[in-house]
């Protein structure tokens, strides 16, 4: 592997761009377990991390990989793990732990087809609801996606920043196409990259409470070994971090875990729009499917049909306001995705069923082509 220089234009796979983005974001710990189609992320980081004094470790299973990532993060080291569908299922309990204990970390899921072992080498987007609801219990979650190697690079950095800012696990959902497509990536100057580090406590260890209730709802967890001796648990806990059965304390905690994401939705949610201003038909597409949707919009326009695209780069919190805004402007919405309507349901909810939402689901292991989207748009019009 050759070294990637700043400012260089490089050809690289999405999975490599993920590894490069992680290191640029300050990731210095990775624990993983081999699984197609994400393994290259681990392989690249097994080379990159020791070269910069970071730690790479291959664990005995997916559960352990998630646990080690959380343990490392508690020492103040930015940490990541990567997996695919079946491994993502196995990690869910500890992802919930990271939400509950408010430990920042990044979990990459390069989606393959399911259910079960499914299609290890073929693309799908069947984990978008699992990413939201996969772990038991109520909690807010942040889930990002990317459609290209370039976007994977920047979204991996953003995933770390959001994790550190909001003290929560952040999930980056790629798909097999994005992970395995080799294409151009421009590596930005590090000085231009925004890096967020978790807030440190300002009070003395004697006054310190790790989960102190504050208006911003974000705890300040001191890294282990810095003189603040406190307790971390997955049990319902009070401000001190110790388990509690007090119903008021429990209520405060569980509500806050959802609120701390909800109250920052406007900062977190991002999307882009292409030719939506005068569109009659709106397309909602994310991940690799957004590439086909981009092409479909162009093809539609060339044929004189006014289509536009809403492309979220944050899947959760769901961009409900943007979808409602689109629904007010267009006659119908088309949702192409590599599943049987997991996000189309959300689009229906967000548009308040005010206009028809047409699903275009593909689950045979092949990408959705621009022509498939064009055909549906024409049919709808």
């Amino acid at each position, binding site marked *: 592997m050759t070294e990637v220089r700043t400012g260089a234009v490089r050809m690289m796979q999405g999975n490599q761009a993920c590894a490069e983005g992680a290191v640029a974001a300050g990731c210095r710990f990775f624990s993983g377990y081999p699984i197609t189609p994400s393994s290259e992320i681990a392989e690249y980081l097994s080379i990159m991390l020791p070269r910069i004094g970071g*730690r790479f470790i291959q664990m*005995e299973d997916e559960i352990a990989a998630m646990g080690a990532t959380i343990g490392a993060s*508690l020492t103040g080291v930015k*940490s990541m793990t990567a997996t695919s569908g079946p491994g993502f299922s196995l990690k869910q309990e500890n992802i919930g732990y990271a939400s509950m204990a408010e430990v920042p970390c990044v979990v990459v899921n390069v989606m393959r087809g399911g259910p079960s072992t499914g299609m290890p080498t073929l693309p799908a987007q069947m984990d978008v609801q699992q990413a939201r609801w996969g772990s038991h219990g109520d909690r807010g979650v942040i889930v990002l996606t990317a459609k290209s190697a370039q976007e994977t690079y920047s979204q991996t950095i953003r995933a770390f920043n959001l994790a550190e800012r909001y003290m929560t696990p952040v999930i980056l959902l790629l798909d097999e196409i994005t992970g395995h497509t080799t294409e151009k990536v421009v590596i930005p100057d590090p000085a231009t990259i925004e890096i967020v580090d978790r807030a440190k406590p300002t009070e003395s260890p004697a006054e310190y409470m790790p989960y102190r209730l504050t208006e911003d709802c974000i705890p300040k967890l001191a890294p282990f070994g810095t003189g603040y*001796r406190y307790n971390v*648990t997955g049990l319902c806990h009070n401000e001190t971090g110790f*388990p509690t059965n007090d119903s008021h304390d429990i209520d405060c905690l569980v509500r806050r875990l959802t609120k701390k994401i909800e109250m920052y939705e406007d900062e977190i949610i991002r999307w882009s729009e292409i030719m939506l201003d005068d569109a009659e038909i709106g397309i909602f597409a994310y991940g690799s499917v957004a590439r086909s949707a981009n092409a479909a919009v162009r093809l539609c326009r060339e044929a004189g049909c006014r289509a536009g695209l809403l492309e979220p780069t944050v899947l959760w919190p769901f961009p409900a306001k943007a979808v409602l805004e689109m629904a007010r402007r267009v006659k119908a919405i088309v949702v192409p995705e590599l599943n049987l309507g997991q996000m189309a349901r959300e689009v229906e909810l967000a548009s308040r069923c005010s206009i028809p939402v047409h699903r275009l689901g593909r689950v045979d292991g092949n990408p959705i082509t621009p022509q498939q989207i064009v055909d549906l748009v024409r049919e709808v019009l």
Partner: protein
Amino acid sequence: MFDYLKYIREENFPHIWCSGCGDGIVLKALLRSMEKLNMDRDQSVMVSGIGCSSRTPGYVDINTLHTTHGRALAFATGVKTARPELNVIVVTGDGDATAIGGNHFIHAARRNIDLTVLLYNNYIYGMTGGQCSPTTPKGARASTAQFGNLEPPFNISGLAIAAGASFVARGDVYNAKKLDSLITKALQKKGFSLVEVVTPCPTAFGRRNRMATPVKMMEHLRDHSVSLEKWETMSPEERAGKFRTGVLCDVERPENTEEYAKLVAEIRTDR
């Protein structure tokens, strides 16, 4: 006299353990060992899983991490490999470490990361009400083995030795002084160290197995715990049903975080 309060989070007492439980005896042996070694509380981390024994960290005034069921060693591996300068102690139980966490247990031993594991073996799932565990003796009764357990038990220390642990000892809470020395040695050892501590659960195990009082359980420990020296003099018939205590394994093997540090020193490019 040693002041236990130095290491204790007094505000979290009374503890949740039943009367007659041996977990407090293990805790005190650990605290005496920490004092003896003058361990820096700020630089020490205790990681546990789920179960009665895994509630220990809540009472100890160091950095404490109470994780998910069976996963203490996975979390501890992250803590130790990210910050090798921290002292990491793992507290777990027979069910936590050898059933749901069995995979992590053998692999942590194989990797030989410098972790000290205190495994409280009480032959039962106490917190959930007395279901049989991988160490419940054959024939013993449990809430999920009402007619007697049909399965043979794990030999936990043997498992750790086979998997490659650097240091393995077995002790029991009847012989608490001896337990001190085993825990102290384990804390001093560089590499994966295990102390299997046989400890009574009168509530969930004893009452179903004709040892309904804490005293009965302690007598059982007294009568079945055998020193290594004595063990060597005993016939197979005499050994039946008994367990030996002492240092069962103490070998030098390359420690994982040190090996990794050597690799980093060799290939590092950012300096």
